[in-house]
Every structure is written in C-alpha cells, then in structure tokens.
C-alpha cells in the first residue's frame, strides 16, 4: 500500500469525477465518468480487492459508460445543456460534504493504518458467494434479467407508434 500510488489515484479520480459532474459537453462528461471509474477500480486494487476492481472496470467502463454514450447519441437532438448549474443544488451538496467531513474528522477511531491481510483470492470470493450468498446471487441474477427485459421493453420502438 504505497502512499504515492494512493495520492496519484486519488487526484486522478477526484479530478475526473469533478469534471464528469461539471463539464458542459455531454460526451466529455461521459468519458470523464469512465475515467473516474477506472480510478475507483485502481483504488480497489490498492485496497487489495482486485476482483472487485476488475468487476468495477468490467461493469462500469465496459457497459455503463458505453450505455451512457449510446443514450447521449440517441438523445442528441435536444438543445445543449445551457446555463450555469443552478447554485441551490451546489450549496446543499457542499453543505452535506461539510457535514460528512465533520462526522469523519470527529470520530478518532478511523485514524488507523491498514492491517496485514492475506490475499483475497477469487477462489475464496467464489466460495463465499456460492455458500453464504447463494440466495442473493440468484436474486441479483433475477434482478439483472428483469432489468434487461425492462430496459428492452422501455426502449423498443413500436412499429405503429411513430
């Protein structure tokens, strides 16, 4: 857990995140979104959960980013997102950030270093998944199928609608 990598990744991720939240151009924001998630995956690698990082990259960068981009394409004809982001939301976000920060800094117990852990192998994750979390796995499987079908139905162009 070297701190240098941590700092680089942190800066990279936060910058990308901020960019994706504030960039006016839709496409750039989407790409910055993908970059943020690569950064978060890096964080996971740093924290020793490779599998989660890979899954994160796999799912978000591979699928969600593409979907967002596709959605942007499909909704291109609308007017550009003009106007400053209204400040109301920003103020509240900052306030909430302040609150969270206050909460984190106030609790001393968090100020601990990373203890030594044995590598979290994919086999172990697989084992736990298949024993303790077998039901949630099935439910998530069901959920994903449902989402798949749902999205299809929502988006399917009815021949006669147009």
């Amino acid at each position, binding site marked *: 857990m070297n701190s240098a990598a941590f700092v680089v990744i942190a800066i990279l991720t936060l910058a990308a995140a901020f960019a994706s939240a504030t960039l006016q151009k839709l496409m750039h924001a989407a790409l910055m979104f993908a970059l943020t998630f690569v950064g978060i995956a890096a964080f996971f690698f740093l924290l020793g959960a490779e599998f989660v990082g890979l899954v994160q990259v796999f799912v978000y960068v591979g699928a969600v980013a593409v979907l967002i981009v596709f959605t942007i394409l499909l909704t291109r004809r609308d007017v550009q997102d003009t106007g400053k982001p209204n400040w*109301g*939301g920003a103020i*509240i*976000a900052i*306030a*909430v950030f302040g*609150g969270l920060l*206050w*909460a984190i800094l106030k609790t001393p117990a968090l100020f601990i270093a990373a203890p030594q852990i044995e590598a979290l192998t994919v086999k172990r994750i697989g084992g736990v998944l298949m024993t303790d979390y077998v039901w949630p796995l099935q439910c998530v499987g069901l959920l994903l199928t449902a989402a798949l079908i749902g999205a299809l139905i929502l988006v399917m162009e009815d021949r006669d609608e147009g």
Partner: protein
Amino acid sequence: MTRGIVTNLWLIPAVPLAASLIILSLANSRRSAGAVLAIIGQVAALALSILAFSLTLQTPGFRAIHNFTWFTFGEQTLRIGWVLDPLAAAMLVMIALVGLCIFIFSIGYMADDKNFTRFFTYLSFFSGAMLGVVIANSLLLLFVCWELVGLASYLLIGFWIEKPSAAAAAKKAFITTRIGDMGFFLGILWLYGRSGTLLFYNDGSGCLENAGLVALGASATFVALLIFCGAVGKSGQFPLHVWLPDAMEGPTPVSALIHAATMVAAGVFLVARVYPLFSFGAINGVTPSLTVVVSIGVITALMASLIALGQFDIKRILAYSTVSQLGLMMVSLGVGGVAAGMMHLIAHGFFKALLFLGAGSVIHGCHQEHDIRKMGGLRRLMPITFLTYAIGMMALSGVPFFFSGGWTKEEILHATAHWHASHLPHYLMLAGVVLTALYMTRQMIYIFFGNRRAASEDAHESPPVMTMPLIVLASCSIVLSAILTPAWPWLHGYLTGESAHFDIAVLIQPTLFVSLALVAGGIALGFAIYRRVAGADPLEHAQPALFRFLENKMWLDELYDRTVVAYSRMAARLSDWMDRNVWDGLVRAVSGIGQIFGILTDNFDERGINAGIDEATTGTRGIGRVMSAWHSGQIQTYLRAVGVSVLVLLVLYAWLT
C-alpha cells in the same frame, strides 16, 4: 261382616250421586223416570244407612275406620277414608229418612215445574254430598263434600234461575258460605301442617287421637276456631247468617231439606265431629274455643228469635227459627253437652222439615202466597196440614212429654246449667225458649186461626202425595221422643256409648218444671198478644220502632252491603284503576323515557357528530391544498429536500450527543 260394610261405606253417598248423574243425562222431558230414579237412590241410601246403624248397635262406643291413599305427591302420600261411629250412623239415618220424605213431597210440589228432572238431579246430588260429609274420616274429604254441599245449595237456591232475586240469593249464599269455608280451609292447612295428617282416626296417629292432639299443642284452639268459622258459615251463625233467610227464594222442599234439616246441621255436625280439638286441654270442660262457640251460639239464638217475631213471610219465620235453634245447638256443644246437641239436631231435623213441608203445602194451597198476613183460618180448610203443623210447632217450642223437641231442649238447658264458666247462657237460653214459643204461636195464629183473609179464600188441602210425608214426619217427631226422654235416654247412651236404663224418677227434676212453665207462659203470651189479630201486627202497634228494627232484620244486610261488600267492591275498582294507570303508567313512563332518550341521541347525532365531521373534512381539504403546493413535480426539489433533511438530522445528532 263389619269389615265388609265399612270398606264399602262409600256406597251410601255414591248411590245418590250416581242417580243424579244418570238423571242429568236424561232429557228434561223424562220427568217421571227422573223422580223414580231419585227416590230409588234415596231409598237405597236409607236402607244402607239403617244397615250401618244396626251394625253400630252391637257394641257401645263402636268405631270402624277404612283408610286408603288418595294420591301420592313427591314421596308423601295423602290418605283419606271413611269412619262409622254412632254419630255418623245417626246422622246417616236422619238425612236419608228426611231426604226421602222431602223427595216424595217435592214430586207433588214441583209437579208443574218445567225443569222437574233437573230439580231431582240437584236433590240427589245434594243428598249424596251430605252423606259424604257425614261419613268422612278425613278432614280433607269432609271439606271436599262440604264444598260440594255448598255447590248443591247454590244450584238449588238458584233453581228458578230466571228469577233475578233467586240468582242473587244463590250467589249470596255461595259467597257467604265461601267466606266461612276459607276460614275452614285455613284451619285444615294449619292442622295438616302441625299434626302431619288430616285423618281423624288412624288407629292412634289420627289428628283427633292423642298423638295428633299433642302434636297440635297450643295451636289447637286457633285450629278449632278456624274450623268453627266453616261451621258458622254453613250453619248460618251470627256474623254469616244473612244468606239463610234469602235462601228461602228456592223451592220449599229445598228449604226444607237444606235449610232446615241437613245442610245447616252440617256445621253443628262438624263441631261435634272435631270436638276433641275444641275440648283439648280443657280445664273442667272449658276452653277458649268452646267459650267462643257458646257466645256465638247465644247471640245467634237470641237475635234470630227476636227477628222471627218481626217477619211476615212464612218461610222466613221458619228460617230464623232454624238459625236460633242452631244457635241453641252450638251453645249445647259449647257447654259440653255434645250428645244433647246432637239429639236436638236430629230431632230438630225431623220437626223443622215437618214445619217447612207444612208451610210448603200452605203456600201450595194458597196459590204461592207467602205473606202470613194474607192467610188465616186455614184450620178447617187444611185440617191435616193444620194438625201436622201444630205437632211440629209444639215440638219446636219445646213442649216436653210427647214431643221430641221438648226433651232435647230440656237436655240442653240441663247441660247449660252445669256449665262451669258462667250461668249467663243458661238464663239467656231460657229467654230463648220463651221467645221461640212466642213466635211460633204468633205464626200459628196468623195462619190457622182467626178468620180467612185474602189468599186463603179458596185454599184447599194438598194432595195425599204431599200430606203423606207430613204425617210420616209428624209421627216420627212423636215416636222419636220415646228414645229421647231422660227417662230412657237410649239415644243419649247410644251416642255417648253408655248403656241406657229406664228410670222414671229422672223426670222429676226442677229444671223440667221450670222449662214447662216457660213454654206454657210463652204460648199463653202468644195467644194473649195475637188473639185478635187484624191488619197491623200488635207488636208493631205497641212498639213501632222496635218492630221495624226487627222486621228489617236489624238492618244487618244493609250494614253488610254498605261495609263489607261496598269496601271490597271499591277495592276491586281501586286495584283495577291502579292496574290500568299506576302500573301501566310506570310502563308507559319507561317507554316515554326511552323515546326521550331516542330523541336526544337523534339530535346529538344530527348536530353534534355530523356537523363535527363536516368541519373536520373541510379542514383536512385545506391542509391538503397547502401540502400539494410542495409537490412541484421537479425531481430535484425532492432530492434537495432529502439532502436538507439529512443535513438537519446530522446537525440534530451532533447537537444531541
């Protein structure tokens, strides 16, 4: 042999009852068959009675009982039964014989009545019931027959139902006797309650026997007095005698049978039968109950004889004479002369029946004329009636020697003389004797002597069917005196169980002479007053106020009407009014409250709840409108709200910990 007779002793009352049932089922038209059946019934009863009588002659103090269970209720059994003893036997014979004579007489008397058969039904029913009373060994059976006798008397008095006065008299008789019966009923209940049985003689454990009497103890006097109420009611003693004179409304044979010989005698018989109750715990023959009996007897005797002086209706005079004679009997029983009382009862039965039938034939002769002032001089027109009537009159007023009445009256005076409590009743009774002689001679003179007046113009002698019973009864009165004279007191011995022996010497007694003198004086006085009777009654002429007082029966009837009857009728109307208004009023009040309650809840519901709910609904709608403004549809406003609330929670948390 005795067993056989006692067990089917019930036949004696049963035969006349059966006869009456059969006659009842006959159509009204079968007149002769009805009469014959009744007569046969009566003759059979007489034969059986004589048979039973002969049985009792075998041993002195004979008593045979036959008890059986009437019904069992729960685990208890109610036993009743018959008893045959001299008292009963004598009464049986007297009732049967007198009944027979009257039956025969009424054939003639009622010949032209359209309900002839129904009359005989009632007569035989009556005699059956009367016989039942006499032979009953249980006070309950006695009470049952007693009530049936009361019913029979009601039916017979009200025989001519179309006459309202007859119906009223019947009702009055029924109700007054019923008052007495109620007392009697309470007595029975008390006795049954205390002694545990109502059987008179039950070989040792009967209520009249020692065991029962001891069980009764102090309450014997109260029981006795209550039973005495029954006797007072039935025998027409002082307070409850008012129905008897009115009962004359019924046909004369009825009056003869019921209101002279038998039914009225039942009361005396009852007192005689339950005498041990009265005399229980007597200190030298005097108990409170007996003194009451004596006092009632004395009052009744004097009062009745005085009233008799003031009456003009031939049958009413005889009725009042019966009342006074019964008073006399009660006195004799009271003072302890049970046998004397019974003997007088039997004798009186005969000659009073004789007098009544005589009066009946006189009325028949004078074409249903009852008022003696319209009669007179029937001496020559109706010789047989006159002769028999004279014999009856002599017996009644107590002429000794040949006439039964005299001896028995003599006996009674003898008993009252020896009464320890006080001598007053003795002297009063002597006065009674004089008065009796007086009103009888008055009646004789009015009817038979003097010159003929209105009704007796074309009077004619009654047919033999009517005069025959008169002759029989007259001869009986004379013959009976034979066994009654103190010289050979056979009947007295028979009744008391002692042996009778012939002794002329007994006759020479001071009281005998005194009574003889009194009777002669009475008759002489009578002749003196009423010799030249014309128009108004001499007594009325002499003492108008007193006479009117007596004529109106001392206004007792009016007194009763105005007090007892009026009050009870008023009580009835009051309770009806109470019922209709007070209790029903309560119910109506409750329902009223219910209605008011209903109205209240309705208003409350209308104004209170409905209005309240309407207010509430409008209020909520207002709030609703305010709230909806919040839902602007902008998703982001919602999210901002979420954010803010999280913040607030955080701050709150921070502020709290």
